[in-house]
């Protein structure tokens, strides 16, 4: 019996059900025939695909490494965590820059402005459209800072905010013991807004250069070393401090990151030596009263298991340390994944998996990884433009025989 031919709509229904966490499936499907390719590169299909699979998966992370005098390879690079399409090449202006943040399909860089570190400018890059915008330093004093880039549309679900207005939040510490200053840039007015009232507090005792923040609804959160989380309210343009679940100061090796959890709550991951803890903030509905922190998970990380050749490493004999000590550096927003830096590379921990939730991305060169900026998106979004410009058979001059 001849197979009935599937019509256009039936094929769309089938392709919608390809798993976004395995981007290769849709790429292969795009090669089946021209009509499938037309479907997959149609913005209307992308829209439906996004709606169907609400949360964009983690594709990989942008990596900032330390400077290496001989190799000169401190350029930011993209490290895929799944079989993913090659990430668009960084524009030349960004290659010598430092990564600062990555959110809502945009990447924020700090451009080195000649010799003057404090005369910094920002670059906001959209990897999909290739758009690049320069943002001058905000008019607030700082010794160290963190910054965030985010979509500027109120009420946006951030599933397709390309080319939309954006915001840059700048948080600066005037001295190591505060106060904290905050200022918000709008791409529509091309100007920084009125700085928020500076936040003074005896507990702020930190540098927070380039730490990763978490956006939960209309608030951005940053961990300040020690005791508190700084909260910036985008709507009210105001700063406040919230308490941590484990306020006792710990004098061993500890690190922490705030995170936007899959269930929509504010999360807080922290390490103490080689143990990893995850907390989430419980909020009473519907009035939004904060009840407190709930511990979600506590695990003892066995990082050494992933590094069987550890003993032969020079650094090991040099440092005479038995255990690898991870430092939490970032969290992938909305997918419950955290990244930790250690001397051998970047460890990724996925809180949703039941087992083998730890993976290692080893240093290919002996450069200490400084920071990671997780990148969540549907891989198929990286396709359309490239697929259209591929040479046709005629251009390739392939002999049909």
């Amino acid at each position, binding site marked *: *019996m*001849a*197979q*009935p031919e*599937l*019509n256009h*709509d*039936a094929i769309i*229904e*089938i*392709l*919608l*059900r*390809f*798993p976004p966490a*395995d*981007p*290769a*499936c849709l*790429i*292969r*499907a*795009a*090669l*089946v*025939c*021209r009509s499938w390719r037309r479907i997959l590169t149609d913005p209307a299909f992308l829209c439906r695909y996004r709606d169907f699979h609400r949360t964009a998966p983690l594709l990989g992370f942008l990596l900032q490494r330390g400077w290496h005098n001989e190799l000169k390879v401190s350029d930011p690079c993209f490290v895929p965590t799944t*079989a*993913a*399409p*090659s990430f668009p090449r960084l524009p030349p202006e960004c290659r010598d820059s430092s990564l600062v943040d990555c959110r809502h399909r945009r990447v924020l860089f700090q451009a080195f402005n000649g010799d003057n570190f404090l005369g910094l400018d920002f670059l906001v890059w959209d990897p999909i459209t290739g758009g690049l915008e320069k943002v001058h330093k905000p008019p607030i004093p700082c010794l160290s800072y963190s910054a965030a880039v985010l979509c500027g549309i109120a009420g946006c679900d951030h599933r397709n905010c390309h080319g939309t207005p954006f915001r840059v939040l700048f948080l600066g510490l005037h001295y190591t013991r505060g106060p904290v200053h905050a200022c918000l840039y709008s791409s529509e007015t091309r100007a920084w807004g009125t700085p928020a009232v500076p936040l003074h507090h005896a507990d702020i005792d930190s540098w927070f250069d380039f730490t990763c923040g978490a956006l939960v609804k209309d608030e951005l959160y940053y961990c300040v070393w020690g005791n508190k989380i700084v909260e910036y309210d985008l709507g009210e343009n105001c700063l406040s401090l919230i308490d941590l679940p484990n306020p006792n100061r710990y004098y061993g090796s500890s690190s922490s990151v705030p995170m936007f959890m899959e269930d929509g709550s504010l999360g807080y991951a922290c390490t103490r030596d080689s143990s990893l803890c995850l907390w989430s903030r419980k909020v009473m509905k519907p009035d939004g009263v904060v009840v407190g922190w709930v511990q979600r998970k506590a695990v003892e990380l066995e990082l050494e298991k992933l590094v069987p050749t550890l003993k032969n490493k020079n650094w090991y004999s040099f440092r005479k340390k038995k255990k690898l000590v991870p430092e939490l550096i970032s969290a992938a927003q909305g997918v419950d994944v955290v990244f930790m830096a250690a001397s051998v590379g970047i460890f990724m921990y996925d809180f949703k998996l039941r087992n083998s939730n730890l993976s290692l991305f080893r240093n290919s060169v002996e450069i200490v990884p400084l920071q990671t900026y997780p990148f969540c998106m549907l891989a198929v979004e990286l396709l359309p433009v*490239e*697929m259209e410009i*591929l*040479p*046709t*058979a*005629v251009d*390739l001059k*392939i002999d*049909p025989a």
Partner: protein
Amino acid sequence: MAAPESGDGNNGAARMVTLISSDNTRFEVEAAAASLSQTLQLTILDGGGGGGDGIPLPNVDSATLSKVLEYCIKHAPAAANGGAPNATAVDRAELERFDNEFVNIDQSVLYSLIMAAHNLEIEGLQSLVAKKVADMIKGKSPMEIRRTLGFPDPTPEEQAEMNAHMLEYGWAYE
């Protein structure tokens, strides 16, 4: 989706409607089951399909229609409960078991089903069959997908295009 009300003077027994396949076979089913089809629901609400009339379905053959109705009959009670928010775990597990077995069928029947589900606008069935086909082909190479779906062999031009894409997207084949 609420079950349509029974026809006039027929409140005791469930109302029945007749569907006629493209090869002229008549199927008598409960109106509630046939109403899982958005297309049929309107006709049935208007009182059609009862008595000797029957609703002709020129795009669906009898083999496919009997399969479609098997699905509708099984799913009608849950659909009548408004998507079954109060269904027990046992009921849901039973439906899931039925669904898994239901799509464990010959590929050509699967394609006929997907088209029929589409024509008749039976959302649950559409989704079930599309998921099954997606699972069948998602791990395959483009050529294997073409073969599985019974596409003709690619023309040399298409083949060259595929080769070029494969060079570009080698990572998708590892």
